[in-house]
């Protein structure tokens, strides 16, 4: 069944290569991308099913035995993230049909999109830390291309900041890998788990771990390292910012979870208390930043930061329940966030702007779009019975369990402030009467929406509702994933066999 592990990487890779040759033909490009995204959803669904039934799946590329060759591993966490990546990719590809014009397709939109997905899936599935670096690079270079595709002024401006900080993160990451290899003599994650506790020089080990925290913290937009995100995410086409917002920061969170549950499992000194503080400050600054914004996509961008804080909080609490909460949060958040960006695109299409001041009256003119916004927005804020409520509840419960009352209070308060932001958008965009004169700029020509845009939004909103009402099933799944994370022995056995 190892082919299931390779297909989620191979399909977008092959699709990306073929799409290069179809650049001049938008129709064929789209057909290819849609077919590919569909196939990928199918295979990652099968992978998830297989992992859920049979436990962790691993394969050695080129048949080089485990600590020497490159390993691909899918545990519950990896498999479910690959599945969601495929779903978001399918939704965004469908949305692109209406959002991306022939000019951008001619410049290579679809190849870049597929390479981005390839890099993300590779990062989720690899069991080798240097290979993780390579997948990060694949993902990065594709995201650079997508971000500045079209080359408007604001895109180039945001692009410069995004590229600069991400390259620095990359350098930190590779430096950390080099030092870790020097300490242990291995790059395989499972092998690192067995070798890291043997390192005598604990001070050096902690220093290396902190390099990884800085590198992944930049990718995940944790507290002092997040300024690149709201500078860049509102500039590219809506389809691009939707897939970025859903997936890119979450790869950083995934890498943090993977490395700190598998590699740095020895006593890390002040790391976890520090991560707790970082998580709390990430939540607070993100949500306060959003409150100060008046542009649809910039509000949403700041909310990515505050939500990342919740996920980091689950890792920092170190209990199994908290890890399960983080995983639930990841599942819920990727879908909801991507969907909110897609809705902002539909609104922009109807009224020609992202500025709240220039929008209004959508509830009266297009009531169903208001409903499609309401579901993800209030799921994000944590209204029962939508998915966000359960994710937040598990995390707050986990922090109460180990008497972190301050953190639980911060998490609840940030949820409340999220409601403030969402009601601001609701009041300005959907309830307020439409502003009289639409004379702000030339680009603000209202256009019709298309089914290609509404179908993915509806599907993602339905998924949000399903996760909300099927919370028990998702929770059981997250609990099982957390079980694997808190007992790294499962992972090590799956990769290295039972030979130690």
């Amino acid at each position, binding site marked *: 069944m190892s082919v299931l592990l390779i297909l989620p990487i191979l399909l977008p890779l092959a699709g990306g290569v073929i799409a290069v040759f179809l650049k001049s033909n938008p129709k064929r490009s789209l057909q290819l991308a849609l077919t590919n995204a569909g196939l990928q959803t199918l295979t990652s669904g099968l992978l998830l099913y297989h992992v859920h039934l049979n436990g962790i799946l691993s394969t050695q590329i080129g048949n080089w035995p485990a600590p020497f060759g490159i390993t691909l591993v899918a545990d519950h966490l990896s498999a479910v993230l690959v599945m969601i990546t495929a779903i978001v990719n399918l939704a965004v590809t469908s949305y692109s049909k209406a959002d991306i014009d022939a000019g*951008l397709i001619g410049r290579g939109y679809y190849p870049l999109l597929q390479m981005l997905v390839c890099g993300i899936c590779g990062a989720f599935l690899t069991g080798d830390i240097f290979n993780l670096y390579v997948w990060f690079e694949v993902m990065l270079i594709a995201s650079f291309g997508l971000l500045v595709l079209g080359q408007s002024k604001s895109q180039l*401006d*945001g692009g410069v*900041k995004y590229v600069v900080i991400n390259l620095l993160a990359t350098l930190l990451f*590779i430096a950390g890998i080099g030092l870790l290899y020097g300490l242990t003599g291995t790059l395989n994650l499972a092998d690192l788990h067995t070798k890291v506790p043997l390192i005598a020089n604990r001070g050096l080990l902690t220093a290396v771990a902190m390099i990884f925290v800085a590198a992944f913290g930049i990718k995940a937009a944790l507290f002092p390292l997040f300024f690149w995100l709201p*500078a860049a995410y509102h500039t590219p086409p809506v389809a691009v910012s939707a897939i970025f917002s859903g997936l890119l920061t979450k790869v950083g969170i995934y890498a943090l979870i993977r490395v700190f549950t598998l590699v740095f499992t020895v006593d890390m000194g002040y790391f976890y208390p520090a991560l707790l503080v970082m998580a709390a400050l990430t939540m607070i600054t993100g949500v306060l930043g959003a409150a100060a914004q008046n*542009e649809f996509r910039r509000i949403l961008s700041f909310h990515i930061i505050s939500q990342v804080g919740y996920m980091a909080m689950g890792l920092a609490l170190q209990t199994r329940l908290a890890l399960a909460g983080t995983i639930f949060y990841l599942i819920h958040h990727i879908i909801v966030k991507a969907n909110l960006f897609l809705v902002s695109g539909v609104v922009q299409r109807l009224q020609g702007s992202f500025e709240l001041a220039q929008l209004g009256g959508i509830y009266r003119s297009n009531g169903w779009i208001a409903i499609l916004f309401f579901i993800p927005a209030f799921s994000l804020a944590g209204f029962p019975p939508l998915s966000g409520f359960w994710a937040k509840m598990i995390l707050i419960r986990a922090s109460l369990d180990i008497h972190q009352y301050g953190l639980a209070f911060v998490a609840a308060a940030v949820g409340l402030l999220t409601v403030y932001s969402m009601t601001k958008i609701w009041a300005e965009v959907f309830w307020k009467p439409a502003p009289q004169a639409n004379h702000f700029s030339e680009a603000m020509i209202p256009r019709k929406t298309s089914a290609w845009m509404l179908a993915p939004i509806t599907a993602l909103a339905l998924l949000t509702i399903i996760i909300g009402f099927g919370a028990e099933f998702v929770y059981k799944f997250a609990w099982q994933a957390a079980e694997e994370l808190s007992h790294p022995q499962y992972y090590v056995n799956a990769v290295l066999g039972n030979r130690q």
Partner: protein
Amino acid sequence: MQTLCAGLVGVMVAASVYLILDRNLIRFLFGLILAGNAINLLIFAVGRLDSQRPPLIPDPATAMQGSFANALPQALILTAIVIGFALLSFIFVLFYRAYQELGTVDTEFMRVAEADPNDQLPVSSPQPGEPA
């Protein structure tokens, strides 16, 4: 040898941090190149710099004898150089295009994406997906 290399890496990183902290993008770029090279050297030093002989196992033996430089970090550096080159060529073009469009390489004046909210009119750039 290794101490010397470590010292060199330290100096290079210090210099690159100084350059990276500059507002001028060109200086930043030089800092980035320097930092990339410093980190490659770091990985090189991590793999031991003991011997000048190739890490080959002589015919009857089954394992290495004596102290050898580890070849794997050198392979890692090779990968890092290739990736670094690709990223660097991208960033050169990006900075040049940004300079053309924004008319500056000073990050202090690169304020299009995050315009001052106190400005009279919001900066609305045409969306690339839209026919302007």
